[in-house]
């Protein structure tokens, strides 16, 4: 099963509102990354947060990481219709394997 589990599975908000989505994981990680996927397209890397970091910002994105709770959150502020997409977290475990583990994603819909 996928290590990363996003919550909620789907989210619908009005333009201008903030969107928050969460990711939980099970094993120790080296880092956690968030990706965006527009419908029928490839994934686009948004932000990477290392295990020794607690918060990171990039434009309207804010990511937090709580390694004690094995969880992360992605906040998109002042959302726009163009933010409509699926958002995935991906963890890179410390177990020595070379694979990322992707969650099942949160489908965000921003209504104009």
């Amino acid at each position, binding site marked *: 099963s996928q290590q990363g589990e996003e919550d909620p599975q789907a989210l619908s908000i009005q333009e201008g509102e903030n969107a928050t989505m969460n990711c939980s994981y099970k094993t120790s990680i080296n880092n956690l990354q968030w990706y965006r996927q527009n419908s029928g397209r490839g*994934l686009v890397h948004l932000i990477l947060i290392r295990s020794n970091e607690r918060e990171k910002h990039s434009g309207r994105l804010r990511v937090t990481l709580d390694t004690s709770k094995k969880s992360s959150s992605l906040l998109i502020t002042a959302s726009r219709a163009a933010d409509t997409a699926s958002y*995935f977290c991906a963890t890179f475990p410390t177990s020595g394997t*070379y*694979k990322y583990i*992707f969650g099942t*994603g949160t*489908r965000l819909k921003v209504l104009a």
Partner: protein
Amino acid sequence: SQTIHQWPATLVQPVGSPLSLECTVEGTSNPNLYWYRQAAGRGLQLLFYSVGIGQISSEVPQNLSASRPQDRQFILSSKKLLLSDSGFYLCAWQGAGSFGYEQYFGPGTRLTVT
């Protein structure tokens, strides 16, 4: 700048037919390469990854195989497709020696097995 290509964009194949999907990367050398499959509305399942020419690691037992005949070329194949092979196939690359950092994805191939 680096670019990743995948083709074809869409493919409809009958059960039992062979498959060949190609991925090429431009603008970088010795990338780590990945093949993922995404079922409708689901996350990504890692199928194969490669750290160099001729080197393939398989993550999931299945009727698919991968090859890396050239540094920046990654091919996903099957001798006989199953209905369960339907999905969205994504190729990704990552800078050499940078495991654990961001991956860059291609546009994907949507495969429908009928």
